[in-house]
């Protein structure tokens, strides 16, 4: 107990003598230190000849290439193409899967009828179907958006069904005791109670949307970050290839940050009103 207390008190005692600026700097270092170290290693390793610079160019060279492609408009074009495709497929999946999941979760008979089918589709890897999508929809935008839609659809649908089915039965009983009609019960109780679990599916789908899009763009596309990566690799433009990879990370981070913000808003009640 006393040992625990002393370890807790030590940092504050030490930090007391430091200036705010220094403390802020230390805080930044603690949060970003690992990332800085990683990029430093990326920069230094090829320069020291620890890895073949032709295969792993220093990050500065990747960024310089990025700047060049940014100025000539290639990077914005690929970036926008990818972002639009994944956002469109993702948004369509949300719009389609949430209502369907709510309906399936609500009506037991419907759930029993469609469940085996859903189970089958869920276990069919989206990328395995990519050739089918290309066959039917060509290599244009439609097939890309469709495959992203397909990949995002399942995690959202299944989590929505789970969310509705697992709403606390006591809350439902309480609402029924208040005489709420089925429609009101759904709107006022089941829907808000389902939001956190539905969001688990939405965030999973966010990650899936990037993953599937890149694979799809590598197989058949004329633009997009996946295309940039695979095309650069074929042409041995290694800095461009790494640039594509870095940009994909950025897209992933961007989508995740958006979803976290949205989730924060929708579930504000979990934290709101100051901690009591």
């Amino acid at each position, binding site marked *: 107990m006393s040992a625990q207390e002393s370890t807790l008190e030590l940092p504050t005692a030490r930090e007391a003598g430091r200036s705010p600026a220094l403390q802020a700097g230390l805080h930044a270092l603690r949060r970003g230190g690992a990332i800085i170290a990683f990029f430093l290693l990326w920069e230094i390793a090829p320069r020291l000849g620890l890895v073949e610079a032709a295969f792993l160019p220093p990050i500065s060279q990747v960024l310089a290439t990025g700047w060049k492609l940014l100025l000539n408009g290639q990077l914005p074009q690929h970036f926008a193409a990818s972002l639009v495709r994944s956002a469109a497929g993702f948004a369509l999946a949300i719009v389609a899967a949430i209502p369907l999941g709510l309906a399936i979760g609500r009506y037991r008979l419907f759930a029993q009828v469609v469940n085996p089918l859903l189970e089958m589709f869920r276990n069919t890897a989206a990328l395995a179907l990519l050739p089918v999508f290309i066959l039917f929809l060509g290599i244009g935008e439609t097939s890309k958006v469709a495959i992203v839609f397909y990949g995002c659809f399942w995690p959202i649908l299944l989590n929505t069904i789970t969310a509705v089915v697992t709403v606390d039965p006591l809350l439902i009983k309480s609402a029924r005791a208040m005489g709420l009609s089925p429609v009101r019960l759904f709107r006022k109780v089941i829907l808000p109670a389902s939001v956190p679990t539905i969001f688990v599916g939405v965030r999973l789908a966010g990650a899936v949307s990037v993953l599937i899009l890149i694979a799809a763009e590598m197989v058949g596309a004329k633009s997009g970050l996946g295309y940039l990566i695979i095309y650069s690799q074929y042409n041995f433009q290694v800095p461009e290839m790494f640039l594509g990879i870095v940009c994909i990370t950025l897209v992933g981070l961007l989508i995740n940050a958006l979803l976290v913000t949205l989730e924060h808003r929708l579930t504000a*009640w979990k934290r709101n009103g100051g901690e009591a």
Partner: protein
Amino acid sequence: MAQAGALEIRNLNKHYTVNGTPLNVLENINLSIHPGEFVTIVGASGCGKSTLLRLVIGLDNEYTGDILLDERRIRDTGLDRGIVFQEHRLFPWLTVKKNIETGLLNNTRFSPEEKENSVREHIALVGLGEFESAYPHQLSGGMSQRVAIARALVNRPEVLLLDEPFGALDAFTRHFLQDELLRISSEEGITMVLVTHDIEEAIYLADRVVVMQPRPGRIKRVVDIDLPRPRPRNADAFVRYKDDLLADFATGDRPEDILAGALEQPA
């Protein structure tokens, strides 16, 4: 409104079918509760006391016999009856105020002003004015239960049903809320029916204690509690009632329930 809230239960029978054989949960229940009366129902688990409340609140219409509120037959849930369960069952995504407002969702009788007034009055009645914008997870068990009481009362029902409302609370909070409930009962003047397995609680609160017996669930007897309020729990008369009622359970057929019931009495 002052004299409304007469609850009349006549020849009430209820059975469930378990594995094809009918199981009587309530047998020939007759009980007449006056407007504004405070009735508590005690009994070992399985005596059907919670089932009885379910039928009165209207969550279950499958029974024979009559349940009449002010001469009208009860069917389905209605604004004239409110219920509080052992678990508070507040909606975690709504503030205290909004939770209480959900009680009014079905109310077409009140004007918007009346609704607002009722919400405000009942928040004040349960003493949670400062907490109206707090969320349930920020409240203690006792505070949550007070919100649940306010929510049940916000339609100004004629009868308030309480199903072991303080069963999950610690002894101090329980005693405090028992006094609160008596205050609310005298201020609102509505009929109260409270189910409990705590004999002391039953005596402390009630004008009349209904003792129920299990298998099949039936009323063993009804005891008038003729004590002025407040009732000191260690007064001779109080203890006599307690001994008298405990004797009912000593002759029951499930010793484990009696033991559990007796152990739950706060010392």
